[in-house]
């Protein structure tokens, strides 16, 4: 399936550099519960790196540590040579995070949601901001939603606005939390193309937390599997076509057994 919108995407000329991410001995406890257990990971600059795993395995918590939104119990995350937990790092690295639920500002219109970043950082005049915002909205077919408020949008539209907001930021490190959840297949394909095209044109490092096998196996340079707060395996797409690990194999190719005795009582 081809998604027409993505082919029209042209990123602004990228000025600056792209950053890799190094996670060393990362542990995170919430109270007595260990959520991340000795995570060691390296994402190379310009790479599309997918984090897969079942719900509750710690993928989003790991992503939040990379974004500097959580403090580690022990261990560290570095973006290039900078400590991700240091607020100063955000002055040195353009980082964008596409939240699973969008995290749009409910009191602002869609247009103002997108315009907030360039306005606050005084990146260009109002005409320049308008051009950037409308361009980002057009990539995700959201021109007609510019004056709407987030409360008027469906879950999928909110997700697309969140992605458009990340594009306006022209990031050097782009983090996605379940970018294709709640999207229809055509929009999922468009988004898959956008992630790939963006990397091609700007060399931006992309870390994608996803359950979507199509997304991961179409564009990821490498994939990591998380299970119960640990990294179960890291490899290229090819490595996971026929995974040796039975847990990963079961996650990627679950067997649907309609005669499972567990569901007998439902009959």
């Amino acid at each position: 399936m081809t998604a027409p919108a993505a082919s029209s995407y042209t990123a602004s000329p990228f000025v600056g550099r792209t950053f890799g991410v190094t996670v060393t001995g990362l542990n995170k406890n919430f109270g007595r519960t260990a959520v991340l257990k000795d995570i060691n990971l390296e994402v190379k600059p310009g790479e599309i790196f997918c984090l897969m795993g079942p719900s509750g395995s710690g993928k989003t918590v790991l992503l939040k540590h990379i974004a500097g939104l959580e403090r580690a119990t022990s261990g560290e995350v570095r973006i290039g040579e900078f400590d991700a937990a240091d607020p100063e790092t955000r002055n040195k690295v353009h980082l964008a995070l596409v939240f699973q639920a969008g995290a749009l500002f409910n009191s602002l219109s869609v247009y103002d949601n997108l315009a907030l970043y360039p306005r606050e950082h005084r990146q260009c005049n109002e005409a320049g901001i308008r051009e950037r915002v409308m361009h980002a909205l057009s990539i995700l077919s959201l021109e007609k939603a510019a004056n709407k408020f987030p409360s008027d949008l469906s879950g999928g539209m909110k997700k697309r606005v969140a992605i458009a907001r990340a594009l306006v930021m022209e990031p050097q490190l782009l983090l996605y939390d379940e970018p294709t959840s709640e999207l229809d297949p055509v929009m999922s394909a468009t988004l898959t193309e956008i992630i790939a095209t963006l990397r091609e044109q700007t060399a931006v490092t992309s870390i994608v937390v996803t359950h979507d096998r199509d997304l991961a196996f179409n564009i990821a340079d490498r994939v990591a599997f998380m299970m119960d707060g640990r990294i179960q395996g890291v490899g290229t797409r090819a490595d996971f076509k026929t995974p040796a690990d039975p847990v990963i194999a079961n996650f990627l190719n679950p067997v649907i057994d309609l005669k499972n005795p567990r569901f007998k009582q439902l009959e």
Partner: protein
Amino acid sequence: MNHLTAILGHIGGTLLLFVRSVKFIGTLPRQRARFIEQCYLIGYTSLPIVTILSFFIGSVLALQSGYSMENFGAKQFIGTLVGLTMARELGPVMVAILIAGRVGSAVTAELASMKVYQEIDALTTMNIPPERMLVLPRLAAILVMMPVLAIIANLCGWYGGALVCQYTHSISVDSESYFTALKTYMKPKDIIDGLVKAEVFGFVIILVCCYIGLNTRGGPREIGASVTKAVVTSLILILVLDYFVTKALLFS
């Protein structure tokens, strides 16, 4: 011991929020739209309730003091009593209580829901400090609006007292005598002290409500809990601070 540590942690966190917000004071001129919006929300929309309540507080004060003072023939001093009490105490305290209930709750609910629905996290990743965009304009607005509201409360209270004195048969103190007594024994310092108290209360209310809102964790239920906590904490702080600020101002 854990409780004490938690309280000290909250005090430290609130002070840190203040320091982090003040750091961005230079950005206030370009945040004038947000500042004006907050002045409107804090000041203009609170005006009707401040006017009505302070008018009736002044009226009741005149009624009660007229009834008591008549017994020892001091009715001519009702104006002084109402004037001083409104300016030094009831004006600033009542405005602060109203602001805690009306504005403080709204600020906490807004920031708590932004926190719970990850809008604060989104701001942080966009390198837009919440202290700059959300806290500083509110702090600046309250500092401007609190003295205005306190002056309006004083005036309404004084006029409420004057009306009661004039038209209550058992008191029968005409407005001219009432205002003469009010002017004779009141000094500018009395009004200024009241405005200083209003500033302190307003500042503390907004700071505490912002801190509690921004530190909310959980879901919709915790938003409600944060609002209750913020309003209760603000009310306690207003009355505790009232004692210490009054003492400091009286003996300064």
